[in-house]
Each structure stands twice: as C-alpha cells, then as structure tokens.
C-alpha cells in the first residue's frame, strides 16, 4: 500500500513537472516555483539526516578509538560553525564568516591544489602510449597542455590553432555525443521512474 502511494505521488508530480515545463502560462511557473520551494524544505530535512549520520558515525568511531584526532576535529568543526552562527550571526564581519574566509576557504583550496600532485603521479605511472588510441589521446593531451602554458603558445604560435582545432572538432563532437547520451539516458530513466517501472528508489521490498 505504502509503495503504491509513493509511486502514485511520483507519477502525479512527474507528469505535472513535465507538462509545466512546456507551458508558457504564468500558472505553470507558479507550480514550478511552489514545487521547487517544497523541494528545498525536503532538501533541508535531508541535510539534517546527513548531519545526524556524520555525528553518530564519528561518535561511534571515537568510542572505539580509531582515528581519534581526526574524528575530534570533525566533531569540533561540526559544532563550532552552527554555534558561531547562532550566537554572533552570519553577518559579513561575524566570527562565522571569519572562520569561513580564513579556515574553510584556504583548506578547501589546499585540498584542491593537491590534485596537481596526483596528476603528476598519474602522468608518471599511468599515461602510457600502450595502443594507437592511447597514443592519440596522449599526443592530444600534450598539445593541449603545451598550448595552455604561456611559453608553449608564445614559442609555437601554430600550437594554439592546433589545440583550438582539437577543442572545437574532436573534443566538442565527443562532448555533444556525451550530452545527447546523458539527455536520452535521463529521459528514459525518468520515464521509468514516473511510470513506476523503476522502483529501486523506494528501497527493498520488506
């Protein structure tokens, strides 16, 4: 009974959102906006569940003694930001914003910058011309890398043209094919979910 009800709701809202997209009527926009606002509320509850899950998991691990310092930092961070926001607000000069600008933002940028080191490691160990397609990919990557660097395009002006051709012809064709593939895949999956053929999102049958 519960599953049928959920599939029914999914069908009604799926069809409603599909139809409103093609309608220029102001009522269609109001429907979209209202549903989106409800989606936002559901998302907020989802976020809350996520926070509780992180809290429970870290507390359990803390008790068992694995990676204690890291767990403590996670929990302190999880507690500190809401406390700062609740006590001093989230204004532009608040401690919350200070923490964001001086702790979170630099840390996130640092983690992102670490990617460069992983790229180097991968380029030494994995980027090999093992076959003809791999060799084509390798040469294209080298040309693009050279063209994106300041010296490469300054020394060899034709390099920019070649790199642009790679970007605008083979790369864009592949990108378009991927986009169309994603679109068709999303369409069929959405239809299967709306029509109740695909029910894995409801979890296992008890």
């Amino acid at each position, binding site marked *: 009974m519960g599953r049928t009800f959920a599939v029914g709701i999914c069908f009604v809202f799926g069809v409603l959102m599909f139809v409103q997209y093609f309608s*220029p009527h102001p009522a269609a*926009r109001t429907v*979209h*906006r209202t549903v*989106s*606002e409800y*989606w*936002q509320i559901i998302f907020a509850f989802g976020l809350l569940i996520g926070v509780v899950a992180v809290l429970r998991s870290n507390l359990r691990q803390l008790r068992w003694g694995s990676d204690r310092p890291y767990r403590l930092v996670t929990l302190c961070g999880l507690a500190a930001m809401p406390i700062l926001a609740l006590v001093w607000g989230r204004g*532009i000069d608040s401690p919350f*914003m200070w923490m*964001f*600008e001086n702790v*979170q*933002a630099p840390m*996130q*940028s640092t*983690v*992102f*910058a670490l990617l*460069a*080191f992983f*790229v*180097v*490691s991968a*380029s*030494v*160990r*994995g*980027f*090999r*011309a*093992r076959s003809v397609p791999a060799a084509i990919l*390798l040469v294209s*990557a*080298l040309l693009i*890398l*050279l063209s*994106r*660097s*300041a*010296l*490469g*395009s*300054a020394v060899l*002006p034709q390099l*920019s043209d070649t790199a*642009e051709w790679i*970007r*605008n012809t083979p*790369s*864009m064709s592949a*990108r*378009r094919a991927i*986009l169309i593939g994603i679109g068709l895949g999303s369409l069929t999956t959405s239809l299967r979910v709306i029509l109740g053929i695909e029910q894995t999102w409801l979890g296992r049958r008890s």
Partner: protein
Amino acid sequence: MNVETRHYAFLGLFVCVGLVMVIGLRPGVPVTADTQRMFAYIDSLPGGSTLMVSFDHEASSLPEIQPLALALLRHAFSKGHKLVGVAFLAEGTVIGYRLMQKAAAEYGRKYGQDYVYLGFRPQHVAAILTMAESVREAFPQDYLGHDYNEIECLRTVDSLGDVAAVISIADGSTTTYWMEYGQSPERLLVLAVVTAAMVTTYDPYLASGQMHAMVGGLRGAAEYERLINRSGGGERGMLAQSAAHFYVIAMIVVGNVVYFKARRKRAAS
C-alpha cells in the same frame, strides 16, 4: 617513511613551481578569440549599463576564480557599468561580496549607486524563474539587509529583461541553468567565466550561440589582464601553471621512455 618514486615526483613539482615563482618570469600570453569576444562585449556596452554577476562557485576553486572574476569586475567598473551581484552557491556568497567590494574600491565606485550585492538564494532554478518575473520577489533585501526599493542602482531593474547580460562565474554546471531557465522567457544574454576544467563542458553552448562569450581558467585570466592592461593573479598563476604543465609533460615523456624500454627488454628476453 618509505620514499617511493612518486614522492620524488611530488618534490620535483614543488621545486619546479617554487623556482619559477621565485625567479618571477613574466611570459607574454597571446589573447585568444574567446577572451577577445568577452572583452569586446563588455567594452562595447554603453556606460551605465546594468550587468548581473552571479557567483556560482565554491571556495575550493578560489585560486582560479579570483583572478578571473577580478579582471572582469575591474573592466566592468572601469567602463562605468552598474553591477548587481548574486550567488547561487552558499560558499560563493561572501567571496563574491569581497571581490565586488575590492574591485569597486579600486575605481571609487559606491555601494548602492554603482553596484549592489543581493547575496545568496537557494534553489537556483526557482530563483532564476522568479527573477525572470521579478528580481525584487527573489531578493526583497540585499546582502547587507537594505530594502530592494531603497537601492538606487536597482531602480531600473525589475526583471532579468532589464539587465544587459548575466555573467556567471562558475566552477560547475550552474551556468547551464542560466541558459535553460533564464533565456527562454527573457532572451537573456549569458556570459561565462569558468574554471579551465569546465571549458570543454560549455564549448557546445558557446558554439551554438546559447552562450555569448566565455573566458576560462588562469590562461583566460592572464589574457583578460593583458587586455585591460593590468597585471594580477592571472599572470602570476599562469606562471605556476605553465611550470607545472611543463613538469607534467616531462613526467609523461619519462614514464613512456621507461615503459618502452621495459617492453623492448621483455620482448628481447
């Protein structure tokens, strides 16, 4: 600690980038057609035109986004355009405000008169659809809590149809929503300022004309800085990026030489 080959490779990258930064080379970057197109559009707008700047990025991409955004904001402020800032990702909110504040101060632009920051609005699809009808409804107050009706530079802005273009500064797919939901009712002109990794994602939109112009990555920032005749983070970042690129190329070549030597050895034995 076990020192492996990859640790030497990491050290090599660090030394390579560090050395180039210390020496402080200033390589010239030729300007590409994409960057020129963006520059030409902003340059050709009559002074006092209103542009909406959407900060659709997270803090992790700040080193790449900051020089790009600053170069563009500086150009827009230098031409006397009025800027309306918004953010669709919570993390980009304060970053966007600081960047606008910094660029505006350099050109003596006043908050409220020459630029305004409306702040963050969750659920970007709903926000864009609402803004297409009424910006006031989506943002009744600005980021600092001023009432929409009291802000001077917003007097001529009722809906998205009243802005010349939207500049989406993004490190993800949010720019797509500006094109999908902003363009259909209002024929909104979308300009993109994106990280290098996102350039190929948006290339089809640029080629089809759904996106008017795009500047991407540190290279784009360096090119734009050259166009506005003002050195900045793009040029410095380009130096580090170029050094890292050359190092990666060298590593790929070394890796392949080692691989082919080993393969030949295996075939011979």
